């Protein structure tokens, strides 16, 4: 039983430092400066949102933090140690759920746990159940992925990302494909999970309201080359309601700044 308690205890969140990271993609037709000398610091247990229009390199940055991509220059430090590849301390939640269709819900959540040593199978199932409960899907543990709605899929993806008990959660527009009502529910869930599990969260979105609703800090990205233009602190108490007036005021301020930075090409911004 001790292993289980150990496993389920909230871990110390991770400090993420991004130092002078640049990244260029070369395709046949063009050279894209995805990131240009980007530096930022995300404190332990902090919830930071990266906001910018599509194609501004914010997802690239997230992938570099995850260790799935490498930077051309600069480096990412996790608690002071350079990131060299993917690691269980940094889990990613993708825009599409990226759940494995050949496994059912339970086996999807177990996938990462099975790769974690020092647990026996009974404990793994127990841990998986704990996280399925956390996202409210314990009744669906034997369901197939295609039987789930979009929102449920993302909940399973969240459970799967949380299951190995990472110290930072990297979220790449995870709610982009969901309807507004489902999204609002998930905003609530994410905030309560963040509160309960104390993780560092880096959340990428093009939705300014979403960023203000979730993040303690909102970083504004501009595209080509991808750069952090401005930083906003959101001092509203959690849990926040996306429809509240004060939130809308914050969002309007950021939206204005975003439009300023995007001129003259400001057509791609949502909301």
């Amino acid at each position, binding site marked *: 039983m001790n292993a289980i308690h150990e496993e389920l205890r909230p871990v110390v969140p991770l400090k993420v430092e991004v130092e002078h990271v640049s990244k260029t993609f070369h395709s046949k037709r063009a050279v894209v400066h995805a990131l240009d000398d980007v530096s930022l610091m995300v404190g332990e247990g902090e919830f930071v949102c990266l906001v910018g229009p599509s194609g501004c390199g914010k997802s690239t940055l997230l*992938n570099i933090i*995850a*260790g*799935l991509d490498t930077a051309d220059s600069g480096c990412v430090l996790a608690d002071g140690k350079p990131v060299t590849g*993917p*690691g*269980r301390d*940094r*889990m*990613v939640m*993708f825009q*599409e759920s*990226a759940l*494995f*269709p*050949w*496994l*059912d819900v339970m086996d999807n959540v177990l*996938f*990462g746990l099975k*790769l*974690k040593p020092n647990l026996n199978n009974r404990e793994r199932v127990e841990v998986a159940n704990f996280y399925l409960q956390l996202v409210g899907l314990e009744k669906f543990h034997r369901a*197939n*992925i*295609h*039987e789930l709605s979009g929102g449920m899929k993302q909940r399973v993806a969240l459970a*799967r990302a949380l299951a*190995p008990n990472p110290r930072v959660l990297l979220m790449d527009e995870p709610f982009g494909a969901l309807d507004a009502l489902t999204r609002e529910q998930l905003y609530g869930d994410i905030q309560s999970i963040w509160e309960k599990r104390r993780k560092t969260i880096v959340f990428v979105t093009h939705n300014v309201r979403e960023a203000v609703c979730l993040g303690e800090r909102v970083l504004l990205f501009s595209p080509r080359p991808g750069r952090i233009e401005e930083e906003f602190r959101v001092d509203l108490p959690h849990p926040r309601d996306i429809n509240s007036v004060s939130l809308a005021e914050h969002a309007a301020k950021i939206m204005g700044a975003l439009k300023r930075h995007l001129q003259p090409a400001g057509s791609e911004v949502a909301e």
Partner: protein
Amino acid sequence: MKRVVTAAVVFASLVALWETLVRAGIWSPVMVPSPLSVVEYIIGAISDGTLWQAALVTLRRLMAGYALGVVVGLPLGLLTARFKFCEDTLGVIALGLQTLPSICWVPLAMLWFGQTEAAMLFVVIMGTVWSVLIATDNGVRNVPPIYKRAAQTMGSKWLHMWVRVILPASLPFVVSGMKQGWAFAWRSLMAAEVYVTILTGFGLGHLLHYGRELHAMDQVIAVMLVIILIGLLADKIVFSPWEKFLHHRWGTAK
């Protein structure tokens, strides 16, 4: 249930019509033997064991050759999908040889292995391996990159990644390739058995061939029926469960 009854009635009337046409002398029994004589042959051949033996010989060749073909084709498909060098060499060979009906290998197989089981095995393997290889290659290439990335973040790499992510993700392709390989192998084996005599065992193809030599069309039709039956059973027993599983899990066509 109602559909089963309807279908049974339709088939029964077709057979009855066939019997009537032969009896009335409209169809010559030399050209088309009556269904009753076919049934008579089947009963005789089952009770004296010829049919069982022939079916056993054929099935043994088929299963051994097919299993080997899959065991060889699958890893080769992984190789061509993974390494450019294999893609440019083995991949091209596979693409070419897949278009070659494997019955065309019979002359060489006879030369190399003689009139033995090995020759038959070779023809069946050649029918199976390329389809499985190409389907596996195709399946691996069609695995959405996001699956690999997601697995990577959870700590999956190398062998684990291939066995637990890439292979299962390409399963729909692999299964359809295995089915195609089976069809090729089955047809080639039948053709080969009709075409050449193998001294180490007489299969269904030989039985059909002798039917032709003796002008025993009841025998020919009976063997054809057995061949159809085996094909249907293979589909129902071997492939249907897989396809059901895929439909169930992936949520593809009902």
